[in-house]
């Protein structure tokens, strides 16, 4: 890719070619962030399209105070979480109300008899359970996990993207991980 700053400047002036180049470069990461939140192929396609359309419209207002990728993540996460809100009924039907689940509470899931089930799981089985449990997390928790564990972003960057205090990122991530761990341990093989 050409120099990103130059492409952004050209795209801000309406250069579609420059925007296309930025889009092609950013697509894989935007896709991954949104997929980890939505975990649904068609919904991810729809939201990714919305994100780039919104980015094109909002680009003249992008002042370069943050990285372009951070700015794009912000649009992506906001749209993805809003999308989850819109299809909330579908999500609620499968969710376990983990939002209110406290650490140490298995929320009614049957616990495995093993004293340390998580570490005993084979990699493939662990991934299977992960795929079952992640959709049960609230969207805001999935968002923070997607940005941290998927994209490897730091807490400060995540706080900027989500527009929340640093402490909220920390607590949200801890709650998400704990809830996920307990869910995985509780899912029957």
């Amino acid at each position, binding site marked *: 890719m050409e120099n990103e700053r130059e492409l952004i400047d050209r795209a801000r*002036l309406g250069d579609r070619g420059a925007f296309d180049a930025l889009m*092609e470069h950013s697509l894989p990461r935007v896709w991954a962030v949104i997929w980890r939140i939505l975990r649904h192929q068609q919904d991810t396609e729809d939201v990714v399209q919305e994100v780039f359309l919104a980015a094109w419209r909002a680009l003249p207002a992008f002042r370069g105070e943050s990285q372009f990728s951070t700015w794009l993540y912000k649009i992506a996460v906001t749209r993805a979480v809003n999308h989850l809100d819109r299809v909330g009924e579908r999500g609620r039907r499968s969710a376990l109300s983990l939002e209110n689940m406290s650490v140490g509470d298995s929320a009614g899931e049957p616990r495995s008899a093993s004293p340390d089930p998580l570490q005993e799981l084979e990699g493939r089985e662990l991934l299977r359970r992960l795929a079952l449990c*992640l959709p049960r997390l609230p969207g805001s928790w999935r968002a923070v996990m997607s940005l941290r564990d*998927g994209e490897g972003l730091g807490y400060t960057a995540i706080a900027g993207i989500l527009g929340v205090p640093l402490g909220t990122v920390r607590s949200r991530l801890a709650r998400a991980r704990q809830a996920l761990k307990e869910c995985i341990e509780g899912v029957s093989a």
Partner: protein
Amino acid sequence: MSNPDDNRIQEFLSAYLDDELTPEEKAGVEGKLQASPALVAQLEKLRLLRKTVAMEDIPAPPPGLIGQIKNRLPAGTATAPRLRKRRRFNIVPLAAAAMVVIGVIAGGIYLDSHGQLGELFRHTAVKDQVPLPSAPGGEEEAGAEAAREKLKALSYIGTAPAPGGEAGAPPPGPATEPPAPAPEPSAADRQEAQPPQEAGRGFIEPQAGELAAGAKQEESPADSKDFPARAALQAAPPQPAQPVGMRTWTPPGTGMLQWSVAPPEDPALILGQMAEEQGGRGLLQAGPPRAVRITVPRESWSRLLAALRARGVGGTTTLPAPPEEVDRVTLVVAAPSLAR
């Protein structure tokens, strides 16, 4: 119930794993880990979990996705963000300008009726050292004719704009009579957030082009009363046919939609995004109440309603469907948390 201490320990462990603790916090956690094998086991579980989440297979984006997005992107230049504060006009300079125009018209009519216009122009020309063109039949008559044309053109600038803002343009052809000065705009003229409504049906706002071209109108007496500028507009001389403009419909109950949204969410941005997603726009309106006016194409109406309902905006369930003949729909959402 969870133990707050347990929650706090989990937070520190999670942040320790991500190397996001201050040196003091990190030293504290390491001290606890040395003293507690159970805590070390918890940390290892979290580490395994994080690694598993990171290595999860993500399906690749479909190959045609980029092409689909490119097809949906509008051709040409990106536009500036649409959500912006509406500029508030100061009525004093506008009123002063209107008075000047009225004075010029009245003075012109008086001078014209007393045959003094040519005289006035001649004196002006002498003063400015610019010779008046002499014409057979008398230079005074030529000057008076030019002044009359000028006054007729000027008189249209004094016409109060009708809703839609297109009434102030002077007509290309000569006029026979300057229109009567428009009455003082009513409160409804100045406050776009509360347009008048036909009882139970909503309000359809025609464009100036429709009125001037004699297009089909659905105007009630109440409309004329609330938009007095229309009377002046209709009294204006016929204009050449113009493309019929967009017709905007305001449902009954506009201004009653209420949305309570908790900070840090910004209702203006969210509503603006909603409008843009439906191909429309949102405008922040001065209060009270502070509100966002959303205008979308008619075909996006149901989707906009669904989006508003999904966000918990009140009053959306009783709104009727827009009439077939309108092009756009506009409504106002008041949100108490809108920044002042």
